[in-house]
């Protein structure tokens, strides 16, 4: 083991649904402050990997470490408390609540005040102000009062990121952050990701190769639940196996 612990690490991570293996023996390291992409064809097990890491799914075998600490047995909420946040491939927000409250709920949880039964939520001005500041940073403050379901999809993707950032994560998992977003708004999301604080270790799960090569400094290729290869964008771009299973497939479309 290296001297400094990885922000996130998995060793021998396995998951099967019945007889179907969807993650087999995944060894993965996300360094501190990394900009790392996880790519692979449809059904490669990328989202399953995210669900294993966050604790939404229990692994069949293997260990998960956050900042060097074994969190394999911890429930989802406790991993979040240790600095692990995620966004979802399909918007998973409080659609009937305002944008501001979506972020405020996350901030309330992080600050440990969300279980308070007696004080009015509105009197927690620290929470609301922080939530608003988070929206300002992402440039969506003018939508603060609108219900999430009234926003265009691309804007909702930004709220996804705002909610995750409200948790002040050390490790941020972005599951296809630009999925379903029309090209024009795509740029806003890329810029948002580029401007994330350098100390956050970011793992981007993505289909869009332009986005991956623009954002990532390391790339891991997942195929049929196993790591095929890991390397810099240049190495991955030149790797014939990757071209075959992934880039090749893209050219057929």
């Amino acid at each position: 083991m290296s001297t400094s612990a990885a922000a996130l690490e998995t060793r021998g991570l396995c998951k099967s649904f019945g007889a179907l293996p969807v993650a087999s023996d995944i060894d993965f390291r996300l360094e501190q402050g990394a900009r790392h992409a996880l790519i692979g064809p449809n059904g490669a097990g990328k989202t399953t990997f995210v669900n294993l890491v966050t604790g939404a799914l229990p692994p069949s075998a293997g260990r998960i470490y956050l900042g060097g600490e074994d969190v394999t047995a911890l429930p989802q909420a406790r991993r979040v408390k240790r600095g692990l946040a995620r966004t979802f491939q399909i918007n998973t927000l409080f659609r009937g609540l305002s944008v501001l409250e979506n972020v405020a709920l996350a901030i309330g949880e992080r600050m440990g005040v969300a279980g308070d039964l007696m004080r009015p939520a509105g009197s927690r001005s620290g929470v609301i102000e922080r939530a608003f500041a988070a929206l300002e940073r992402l440039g969506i403050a003018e939508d603060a009062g609108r219900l999430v379901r009234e926003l265009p999809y691309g804007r909702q993707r930004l709220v996804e990121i705002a909610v995750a950032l409200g948790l002040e994560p050390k490790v941020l998992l972005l599951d296809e952050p630009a999925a379903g977003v029309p090209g024009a708004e795509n740029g806003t999301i890329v810029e948002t990701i580029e401007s994330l604080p350098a100390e956050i270790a970011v793992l981007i799960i993505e289909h869009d190769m332009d986005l991956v090569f623009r954002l990532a400094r390391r790339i891991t290729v997942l195929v049929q639940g196993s790591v095929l290869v890991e390397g810099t964008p240049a190495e991955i771009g030149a790797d014939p196996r990757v071209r075959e299973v992934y880039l090749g497939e893209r050219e057929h479309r």
Partner: protein
Amino acid sequence: MTATAGAEQAIGRLAGRHRLRPLEALPWVIAIAAYFLFPDYLPLGAQVLIMVLFALSLDLILGYGGIITLGQAAFFGVGGYTAGLLGAHGWSEPITGLLAAGAVAGAFGVVTGLIVLRTEKLTLLMLTLMVNVMLYEAANKASTITGGSDGLQGVVISPVLGLFRFDIFGRTAYLYALAVLFLAWLLVRRIVHSPFGRSLTGIRENVARMHAIGSPVLLRRLTAYTIAAALSGVAGALLTQATQFVGQESLSVDRSGGVLIVLILGGFGRLYGAFVGAPLYMIAQDRLSALDPSYWPLAIGALLIAVVMLARGGVLGICDTLIAWLRRRGRP
């Protein structure tokens, strides 16, 4: 902070949601007026108030927490029998009886909640129903304690605060129920506007996201379930004390269904659905049953179909739509 006008409004709305509005006094004004206007109907009035409390407790978990239950009468009955058994065995003081009933029903809520709240949706609905049905059968079998299908006899309740005897006209019962309902409303109102209450709403809106922001979802749901169970127990105890009797009907699945209908009629997830639905339901039941016993089930069936098909938000939902429509007309 460089908030624009719209954003400031959003912040203000979130920060000030818990403040009392004048309209919120309306139910209490009506309840007190009804005491003076309809002195002959106070026993029915007390039952309406008790139903409001029962429905209010359901609103906390169903309307805010999104916990779909068809077994809330289990807690109503546990509270009712607790108060009844205390009254039948020499503990006739009503207020401590009420608190004891709430505590026992709450404890029953913790125990059953730990099991049923691990599930969701239809499974949850079936499990809550099963708890209710099993408890009903248990009360039936344990007839030496509960009086079985004859109900519990010999319940004695002392005057409230040693001053106000439960009279035949229902005056004491009405005011006592009103006072308890008021305190419960203050409590529930506080809870739904608290960070805890907002996180319950979050759970209703999207469980996956609540897990992802690090919320202890089971603990939150269990806490709400327990509070609602205790309040339902208090409602059941009120009915026992007001009528000095408790029967198996207090535990029946019919009652669980009835309170659900009350909340659907009034509108759930808005604190005041219980206050609208309960009088509507119970007064209609009283009037229609007086005309002909078969009218009531027919009417409630037709009303439910109308609400489900035309007005998902219940009566209060219709009011919202109407107000929004009038506002739009006011600003051409």
